[in-house]
């Protein structure tokens, strides 16, 4: 549905997005991760035909980003939740949405139905006649999402949809994203919340001007940091830690009664580790495999 090849954006001499090649499939929720200034917003703006690309190609569906004739068609088929909500504070929630509906050739009846559906879905229907300026941050964010969906777009770009929201509001928004996913929409989600990406995304990419990784959250976790085991002991002491290091393993975390050990193939290696611990006088209570989190992978990649 979304496809880019060597997509690049420069502002003057500054390269902000550098040769990004990626593909987002139909109905997929795609997480676009990256630190501040990574170029996420710039990429989305290029894909929504808001700013020009410097080089490379990008396609949305059958349309070509940067092709004059296709620009409007692309804007007609995508919905964009901008980084800043940008609502008309003086206008009511209803009027904010109704205003946008007019640009997509929706007649009044159609607009009415769609607004009612969206506002009910997001729990804002009761407050439809209140000025958007009186809404809380979370409500504004939801209203802005409704605005992005007013024309029932196939492709949805969400630029940090849960930024600045309290955990509860963030959850409502995430749940809504999952609901949209069920409707088979293609969703491109900019975020720097790894937890969020892990919860809602089918695949993620990590951007830092260049694309530094792409895959499912599980794939990234596996490929980029080896496996780990967590050993719970009655008591940890230096002798035990030394004994493990001596047989060639890295101990990445030491607590009062636990050790996290980097391994390659725990099915084969655990036996040796257990023996070393016992020989050093340790008493093993549990042994489990712990996956590294997406956060580990992210930090490792982003810090280079």
């Amino acid at each position, binding site marked *: 549905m979304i496809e880019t090849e060597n997509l690049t954006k420069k502002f003057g001499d500054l390269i902000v997005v550098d040769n990004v090649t990626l593909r987002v499939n139909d109905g997929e929720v795609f997480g676009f991760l990256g630190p501040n200034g990574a170029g996420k917003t710039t990429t989305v703006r290029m894909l929504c035909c808001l700013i*020009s690309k410097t080089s490379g190609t990008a396609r949305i569906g059958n349309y070509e980003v940067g092709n004059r004739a296709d620009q409007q068609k692309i804007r007609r088929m995508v919905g964009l939740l901008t980084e800043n909500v940008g609502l008309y504070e003086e206008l009511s929630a209803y009027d904010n949405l109704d205003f946008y509906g007019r640009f997509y050739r929706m007649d009044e009846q159609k607009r009415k139905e769609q607004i009612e559906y969206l506002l009910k879905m997001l729990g804002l229907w009761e407050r439809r006649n209140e000025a958007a300026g009186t809404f809380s941050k979370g409500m504004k964010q939801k209203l802005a999402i409704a605005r*992005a969906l007013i024309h029932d777009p196939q492709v949805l770009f969400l630029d940090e949809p849960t930024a600045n929201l309290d955990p509860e509001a963030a959850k409502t928004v995430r749940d809504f994203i999952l609901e949209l996913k069920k409707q088979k929409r293609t969703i491109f989600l900019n975020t720097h919340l790894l937890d969020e990406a892990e919860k809602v995304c089918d695949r993620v990419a990590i951007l830092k001007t260049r694309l530094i990784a792409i895959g499912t959250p599980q794939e990234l976790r596996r490929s980029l940091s080896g496996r780990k085991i967590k050993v719970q002991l009655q008591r940890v002491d230096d002798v035990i830690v030394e004994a493990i290091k001596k047989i060639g393993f890295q101990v990445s975390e030491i607590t009062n009664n636990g050790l996290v050990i980097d391994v390659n193939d725990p099915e084969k290696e655990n036996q040796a580790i257990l023996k070393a611990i016992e020989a050093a006088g340790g008493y093993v209570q549990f042994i489990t495999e712990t996956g590294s989190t997406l956060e580990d992978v992210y930090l490792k990649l982003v810090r280079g």
Partner: protein
Amino acid sequence: MDLQSAWAVAAKDFKIFKRKSQIIYITIAFPLAVGIAFPLIVQYALYNAKSHLVGGLSITGLMDAFSVWFLIGAAIIPAAIASYSLVGEKIQKSLEPLLATPMTDGEILLGKTISGLVVPLAAIYAGSAIFMVLMDLVTHSKLGYLYYPNWHIGAILLVAPLICLFSVELNIIISSRINDVRTAQQMGMLSALPFFGLYFASEFGFFAFNDSNLLILAGVILVVDFVVFFVSRATFQREEILTKWK
């Protein structure tokens, strides 16, 4: 060019204007001030023999001079209103979602121009209607005929929209650089300076707002309109707005 989209933008602006007391005051105060206060001054001048207000000017000269205020209004009122509609969008950051719709830049710009023009023109035409009626009421017994309507005010009311347009387009250019409604309004009001100049020049007899001079003025403003329009059109580009408007 989809006129419906442009109109939707303007209609949305009108809804917002209705909630801005400053805009409402200006649009009500102007016609009242110009339409009522000036005839009262003429009335006073006519029936107070001692008054030197009429001085060198004839009654009709005084009326002609006062009618120039419609031109000054045409420069000032749009400055007050258009800055709300543009800097307002900028501050609320509502331009980006708007630019993400299928609308073209031209359609958005047209909508903004309509909303910047309609309210001031309504105020000016309403004011001029009151002005003409009351002036006739005050002066017809002295003059022995109805002075208004006449070509002079007709010419002024034809030039007024051109000045409004100039003021609106100028405001679009100003708004691309300014982030504060007050400042944008003040800068926009500078566009009234030349008309103040002409007004005082006419009061002191250096310039006459006669029909031929008004025609020349109209021609000059028309040319200026084209220039400002093209500059504002060049300023109002998606990419420019999102990346260069600070």
